[in-house]
């Protein structure tokens, strides 16, 4: 039986995919700006965040409307509550991309401390995990969502490597590198946080699809 409600849910899904596209694009552009020392590109990332902020409000409002007007149950209820959570996670990912862009601006005019190796890898992990989480959402794919959750350790390890290298090989040996090392340290942290948000999204998606809570319950994976 066709439900008008299904059309509204599809529309909500479309808005979330749009939010996810914006978040992924922001990560990509922020990391490119960092690598290319492109202040203008970094500024564009910062300026475009307002678009994500507006869309976040639109999606939140839509979710509240659907709950208030349709009193959803079961799978519909899980879908909408998950949408609310994903929306917040994606908005935070957008903010973290802005943080990366700000770091890019901070170091753009300074001599490069070192060639970037692990940070681009971490950026790739952040983009990949965010993309996979959204793909899992679109296709209700719990296997892919679980893959995202299990990738978290890879991101943690990359961040640790960046921190160790910057602190021990640069900052401790030569304190004058701190003003260039700290932005890179923070960038690694921002990117690793993006991975954490992707993991949270994936956990919510597993619940949405299968009603199994894997958040704080790794044994359920």
């Amino acid at each position, binding site marked *: *039986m066709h439900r008008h409600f299904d059309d509204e849910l599809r529309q909500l899904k479309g808005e979330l995919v749009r939010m996810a596209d914006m978040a992924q694009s922001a990560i990509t552009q922020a990391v490119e700006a960092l690598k290319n020392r492109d202040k203008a590109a970094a500024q564009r990332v910062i300026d475009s965040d307002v678009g994500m902020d507006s869309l976040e409000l639109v999606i939140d409002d839509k979710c509240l409307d659907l709950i208030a007007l349709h009193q959803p149950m079961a799978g519909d209820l899980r879908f909408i509550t998950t949408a609310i959570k994903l929306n917040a996670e994606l908005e935070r990912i957008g903010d973290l991309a802005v943080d990366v862009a700000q770091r890019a601006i901070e170091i753009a005019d300074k001599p490069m401390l070192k060639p970037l190796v692990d940070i681009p890898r971490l950026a790739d992990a952040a983009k990949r995990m965010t993309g996979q989480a959204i793909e899992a959402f679109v296709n209700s794919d719990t296997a892919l969502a679980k893959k995202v959750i299990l990738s978290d350790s890879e991101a943690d390890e990359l961040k640790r490597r960046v921190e160790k290298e910057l602190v021990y090989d640069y900052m401790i040996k030569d304190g004058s590198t701190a003003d260039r090392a700290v932005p890179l340290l923070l960038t690694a942290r921002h990117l690793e946080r993006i991975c954490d948000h992707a993991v949270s999204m994936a956990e919510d998606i597993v619940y949405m699809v299968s009603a199994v809570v894997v958040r704080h319950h790794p044994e359920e994976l």
Partner: protein
Amino acid sequence: MHDTLVDYDKQMGLENFHPSLVKGPVGVNINSLGEADVFGLEPKIISRGVNFYYGSKRALNNINISFAPRRVTAIIGPSGCGKSTFIRLLNRMHELVPGTRLEGEILLDGLDIISPACDAADLRKRVGMVFQKPNPFPKTIFENIAYGLEVNGVTDRQVIEATVVDSLKKAALWGEVKDRLKDSALGLSGGQQQRLCIARALAVSPEVILFDEPCASLDPISTGKIEELILQLKKDYTIIIVTHNMQQAARVSDRTAFFLMGDLIEEGRTDNIFKAPRDRRTEDYITGRFG
């Protein structure tokens, strides 16, 4: 997840109740539903292998379900699924319809209520019923409640008066009618009439109250009062409510059973049924995808 369920059961006082105490001969194996494994409390009512026929038409198929004492169980399902038919078996109202036949076993505190040895009038004192449409007698408010007592042989005026007051208080109607007990019950609003019917059921000290869509003809305010009343009454009574209103089932019940075309499809904790039903047919029904 399971820890959370067990915690919830503890909060709800359900930790010692489990529907798997019912072992049906064939068909629905309630134990297979995978509820938190908690045992111990005796169910108030057990339906075991119940089939029911209107003439040659089978209306209920092998219903195996149990009802926890002092809890609210909601029965949901589309029109004609057998939910009203089923609760009418629990106080043998089906016997008023000619040409019906019941197979299986229904136990109330272990007593086989279908057995000819069980007196239907005694049973209906223990298992009261409130119907979809308020049906007060064309008598005064006082007489509506006193009537059941008098029919049951109570003659002491003081006892009758005290019971009327007590029943009206329990039904949350006393404050609204205490100065008009001698007025006709037919002058009350629909919501008040329904609470009067609940008071009438309470007057004979039942243990179980069956509600058959009690709010179907009431406005949201009266509905809210009845729902609040059900939540209060469950401290003392085992309540089974048939409702078409999903939100009502979700609001007032501890457990929910879904019937479809005479089958019990799924029974479980209400929050689980409405958040994550196990059966696709339940999901389709509660999300309005049936058609």
